[in-house]
């Protein structure tokens, strides 16, 4: 009983000192605080990608000298995953969003990584009037009504009837269709087989890819896109079917976390040697590690925007600085972590005071932003970036080698 009372007192004390005494007390820093809270899956299998995003955010804060307009920038790196599940959890994402709303110092919520998680945090932050910038959630329905949608997207995420969510990464409605064009024109495929992982992102992007394939006259084998159950130990019964249908290429809408590497392996084991294409959910080192270099030899991966190795000017400087600081290559989403933090900090600087509403407005009105590392872009009325590009890379010798960058027409 004693120990429990002591613990309660101690946590109460700690909480009190945190809430009531931001910046005063022991610390000599008396500047007021602006807080950035980010929410990503920081434990589990997406950690490689989210580490790099967090590094990008930290570098943006450093580039601003850790302050804007006399306000110290505090950064809270929150986790929306649990160790036991190894991926994002709705409860954790919702808690992070509520924490952000409840803390008056928090000016921006950067995140999440997964589109499914965005569905959870968006309404909470929208109602709380907190600016949300995602560097990685790419499901188009989060911001724009999709053809054939019956779920009321995106209005269901905007209970306050206004836009508070924006994103700095290109969306899947760029990725899916442009991938299909590439498959027809560059890979000269005629018959394709489409698989997906049955999740919001994977099924979504596979659907967009499939629709474009139909529109440009590619034959879809097996009657339409087919799901895999990614927790299964083997996909051989599916890959044998793929082989029997003899496609010119195979598309998989899914992520490294939903067994993309294992699927490629099983395809190769079934002697399906045609090109395989995967979306940005696999554009990471973890995917390259999940299968052997031989199995990945004829695999293409796409990423919204450009590969870090292709950046010029400020982007190139960023990549070099990143390598020097963290002694490894930035993953594809590092630049969007930087971009998200930079566009917020620029808006906060313009406003010059601690005002959620004013910063939110200033950020969403961003036009021709050049303060980041990916080039010049603006937010459109829905909060999407105008920079809608796609890079297609091929895996060669265990690395992504960019083949082509295309703009949305």
């Amino acid at each position, binding site marked *: 009983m004693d120990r429990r009372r002591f613990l309660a007192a101690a946590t109460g004390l700690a909480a009190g000192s945190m809430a009531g005494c931001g910046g005063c007390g022991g610390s000599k820093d008396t500047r007021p605080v602006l807080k950035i809270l980010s929410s990503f899956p920081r434990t589990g299998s997406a950690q490689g990608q989210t580490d790099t995003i967090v590094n990008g955010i930290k570098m943006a804060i450093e580039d601003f000298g850790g302050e804007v307009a006399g306000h110290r920038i505090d950064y809270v790196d929150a986790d929306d995953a649990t160790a036991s599940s190894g991926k994002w959890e709705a409860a954790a994402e919702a808690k992070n969003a509520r924490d952000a709303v409840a803390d008056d110092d928090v000016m921006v919520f950067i995140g999440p990584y997964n589109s499914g998680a965005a569905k959870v945090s968006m309404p909470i932050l929208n109602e709380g009037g907190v600016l949300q910038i995602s560097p990685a959630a790419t499901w188009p329905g989060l911001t724009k009504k999709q053809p054939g949608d019956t779920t009321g997207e995106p209005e269901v995420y905007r209970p306050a009837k206004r836009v508070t969510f924006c994103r700095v990464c290109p969306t899947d409605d760029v990725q899916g269709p442009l991938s299909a064009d590439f498959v027809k024109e560059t890979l000269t495929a005629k018959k394709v087989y489409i698989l997906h992982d049955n999740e919001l992102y994977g099924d979504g992007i596979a659907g967009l890819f499939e629709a474009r394939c139909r529109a440009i006259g590619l034959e879809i084998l097996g009657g339409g896109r087919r799901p*895999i159950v990614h*927790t*299964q*130990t083997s*996909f051989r*019964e599916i890959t044998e079917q793929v082989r029997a249908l003899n496609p010119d290429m195979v598309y998989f809408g899914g992520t490294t976390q939903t067994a993309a*590497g294992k699927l490629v392996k099983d395809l190769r084991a079934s002697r399906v040697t045609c090109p395989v294409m995967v979306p940005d959910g696999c554009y990471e080192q973890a995917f390259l590690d999940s299968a*052997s270099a*031989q199995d990945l030899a004829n695999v293409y991966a796409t990423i919204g925007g450009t590969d870090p190795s292709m950046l010029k000017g400020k982007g190139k400087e960023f990549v070099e600085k990143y390598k020097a600081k963290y002694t490894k290559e930035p993953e594809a989403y590092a630049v969007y972590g930087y971009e998200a933090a930079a566009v917020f900090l620029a808006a906060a600087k313009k406003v010059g005071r601690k005002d959620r509403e004013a910063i939110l407005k200033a950020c969403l009105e961003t036009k021709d932003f050049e303060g980041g590392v990916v080039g010049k872009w603006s937010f459109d009325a829905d909060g999407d970036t105008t920079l809608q590009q796609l890079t297609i890379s091929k895996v060669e010798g265990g690395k992504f080698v960019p083949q082509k960058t295309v703009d949305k027409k």
Partner: protein
Amino acid sequence: MTPLFAADPAAAFGQFVLIGLVSGLLYALIALGYTMVYGIVELINFAHGDLFMLGCFLSLEVCLLVGARTQSEAGTPAGLAAVALMLVAAPLFCAALNVAVDRAVYKPLRTAPKLAPLVSAIGVSFVFMGVGLFWKGATDVTFPDLLGPRVTDPAAAPPEPANLLDGTGLRFTFKDLMVVLVTLPTMAALTLFVRYTTLGKAMRATAQNPTAAQLMGINVDRVIAATFALGGALAGVGSVVYSLYFNTVNYQMGFQNGVYAFTAAVLGGIGNIPGAVLGGIMIGLVKTLGGAYIGSEWSEALIFAILVVVLIFRPNGLLGARTREKV
């Protein structure tokens, strides 16, 4: 939803049956560990699947230690040494771990109500999973394809493995053969061991009536430890075969395989060795054929639907009622 087959439907069916049989044998190998332990102490050892997972990780560690990291080492002395070494190390490791867990966790609960060791087993399963998570991280890890054809040019597409059924329209590689050559003799040896050795007899006696067995001078504790060791060793053998066959390991792999193996044991009649083998093969076939002709999203539901139907008509499993002894 039935898939369309461009080529030969009969050959495709034959191929699915082959894949189902081979994966079924793997499930059976894991199922034996469940069934043996249940037969003796009536404990469903839920940690068995995760023990198998740790065996896979140890095998991978052996590969890295010997220097067999990629398919380029397939067939080289390093590759062969790695396979030989892991076939010794993984069963020993799993057996020792299983016995240690029995000593530390299940033995003190031997006389407790049945639920206590059961819940403890679930706890051990989570502990093992946590160990696996810290050992190899959360992503899929590649296991070198040491039984595939040797790769000389890493940039080129992998060479085609030799087909042992060439000309029949079916494919059966050395890897498939390896699964058969390891699992079937292991199961035969186990059956003979339980039937004809002194320890095997002691096991059967303990399974039938532990008190009576003790009165006959059988050291029940030693028999139980031996059962855990044997079950663990089987998980170890299974982990080596599985890793070399599928070439992907993951800290969560124990759960899925454990559930299938456990279902195989129940389907065949838990406590019954030939039953576990039969159950494993059935599950492998249902999963593969169901996945191919109905849709892989339904294969799990199909497996458990069949389990329910079988249990309605044969509550003791397919072979459970026929044999009175439990091992």
